[in-house]
């Protein structure tokens, strides 16, 4: 029974991290029609930066915030400097994000070397929780909590603020949004930076669970892709549901059928694509 508890918690924690990664990816795709293949690299860069920053700033949460901002800045420069020049060339934009992903990944290898770098769990959260005779790794519970908080914050942002309304309008109908005067370029930059921030901070928050290692980007990106394919592009609810679905399938898959975990991940994706190509909650992408 303890096994199931641990695996469930691992699933939820992974789902939470995936949500931090995929929410940004989904929004960027939904609004800007860019499949941002750099997103996995943003996450990994966040993890590496977090490991280094924590030498100077031992507080994980502060580090996550600082790193998130740094990655957001990088993302913003990239978006304004390169992506914007390719407006209208959606294939070109994807290729450029791919190129950027390679550049960031190799840069990390160059700067931090090939060995995995652990990030320590905050000392306050190292002791496990004991409830009803079961042991819960505390940090994973906290990660789930953070994901839920971020989800609620994003929800409020989307539903209750002007920025959110503009984003929703843009996702629904870009031409119409332009026509009613929504400042599309600024909106794009804001959303891209927000996505990068979430990914970078997510990398730090995921640090105690995943640590920072070469290939983290290549491990996370396909999972984010599958989340967005499952959940639907541009949908936060879809990203939320999809993240936890993938978290569960992947974690239990690895635990029960390690050889075929990736194939098992495959199956919900195929089923969803076969019956609802837009994803569970997605809207039509033209």
């Amino acid at each position, binding site marked *: 029974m303890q096994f199931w508890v641990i695996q469930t918690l691992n699933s939820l924690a992974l789902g939470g991290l995936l949500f931090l990664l995929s929410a940004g990816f989904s929004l960027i*795709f939904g609004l800007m*029609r860019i*499949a941002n*293949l750099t997103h996995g690299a943003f996450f990994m860069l966040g993890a590496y930066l977090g490991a280094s920053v924590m030498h100077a700033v031992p507080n994980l949460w502060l580090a996550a915030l600082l790193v998130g901002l740094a990655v957001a800045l990088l993302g913003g420069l990239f978006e304004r400097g*390169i992506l914007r*020049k*390719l407006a209208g*060339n*959606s*294939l*070109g934009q*994807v*290729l*450029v994000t*791919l*190129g*950027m*992903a*390679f*550049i960031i*990944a*190799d*840069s990390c*290898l*160059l700067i931090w070397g090939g060995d995995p770098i652990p990030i320590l769990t905050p000392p306050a959260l190292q002791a496990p929780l004991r409830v009803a005779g079961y042991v819960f790794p505390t940090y994973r519970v906290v990660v789930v909590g953070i994901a839920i908080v971020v989800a609620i914050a994003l929800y409020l942002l989307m539903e209750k603020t002007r920025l959110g309304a503009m984003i929703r309008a843009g996702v629904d109908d870009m031409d119409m949004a332009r026509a009613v005067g929504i400042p599309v370029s600024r909106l794009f930059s804001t959303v891209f930076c927000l996505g990068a921030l979430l990914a970078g901070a997510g990398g730090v928050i995921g640090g105690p669970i995943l640590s920072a290692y070469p290939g983290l980007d*290549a491990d996370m*990106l*396909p999972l984010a*892709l*599958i989340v*967005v*394919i499952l959940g639907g*592009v541009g949908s936060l609810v879809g990203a939320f549901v999809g993240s936890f679905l993938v978290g569960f399938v992947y974690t239990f898959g690895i635990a029960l059928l*390690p*050889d*075929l*975990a*990736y*194939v098992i*991940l*495959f199956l919900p*994706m*195929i089923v969803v*694509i*076969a019956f609802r*190509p837009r994803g569970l909650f997605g809207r039509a*992408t033209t």
Partner: protein
Amino acid sequence: MSAADMVRSRVAQIALLVVLLGAYPWLIGEFYVNLASQIFIAAVFAASLNLLVGYGGLTSLGHASFLGLAAYLSGWLTLKMGFTHGAAAPLALAGATLMAGLFGLIALRATGLGFLMITLALSQVLWGTAYRWVSVTDGDNGLARLTRPAPFGINLDHATAFYYFAALVTVLAVWMMARFVASPFGASLRGTRDQPRRMSSMGHDVWLLRWITFVYSGFWGAVSGLLFVYYNKYVHPTSFALTSSAEGLLAVIAGGSGTVLGPLAGAAIVVLLKNYVSGYVERWNMLLGIVFVLIVVFMPRGLVPGLRRWRERRSGGRA
């Protein structure tokens, strides 16, 4: 130029090509012969990808799926199941092509970026499976100590022999792809690239055109996979990786996606760059990334047309 002249010049061009290709290994050292073999492999891979990208208008980031699958199937069947190459090769091709059929069914539920993402996700599934299904694939060790086939008893372990083998396969592949592109099917395919809705209204089954092309493209990708595994005598999960598919895409973009021969030039560029650079710079991936960004931003139609235009602008001036 009269028609007879044109035919004669065509024949002369082909004859010259045959002579050059044939004489090449006798003119230079083994390292360069092997380099040429690598170019052939990359050429078939890029050309097969271009059927989808350039002629079908469908950009795939998962083409390495078929190269890797054919390579692994061949390796597994010969190394672990004791098959001969004569039996393993057609089985590997069949298996990879069947997978292309299946992947096509899934990926073609979407177009554009959705298609791109699904092809990427599918190849990543194969990548992850190759790492994890250790009992079959030996995981991170890869399948090693593989052998090259000996068609008609000819030992392909010599660089020159393999070169000719690869050259022949490449010529056959390119010829079959060129004919495909020049056929009524190919013309219809190009039509779906440019105006899919209009093609539908004229009676063309756009989905079927694309799916068949996907399978055909996957088949030749698998052929490049066999050449790959024979050449290296080794296959590793990185064959399925995004970098592998990306290199193919770079070759297509660099050489220009508008022709059958463009990707061949692009493949040569990518292989030469990789080989040359790896002597000086450790980080090939970073270079790959930078080249991607530069080409896309400055020469979106590909290096070959881009360079031509740049040269025109320098010499001609105001056009």
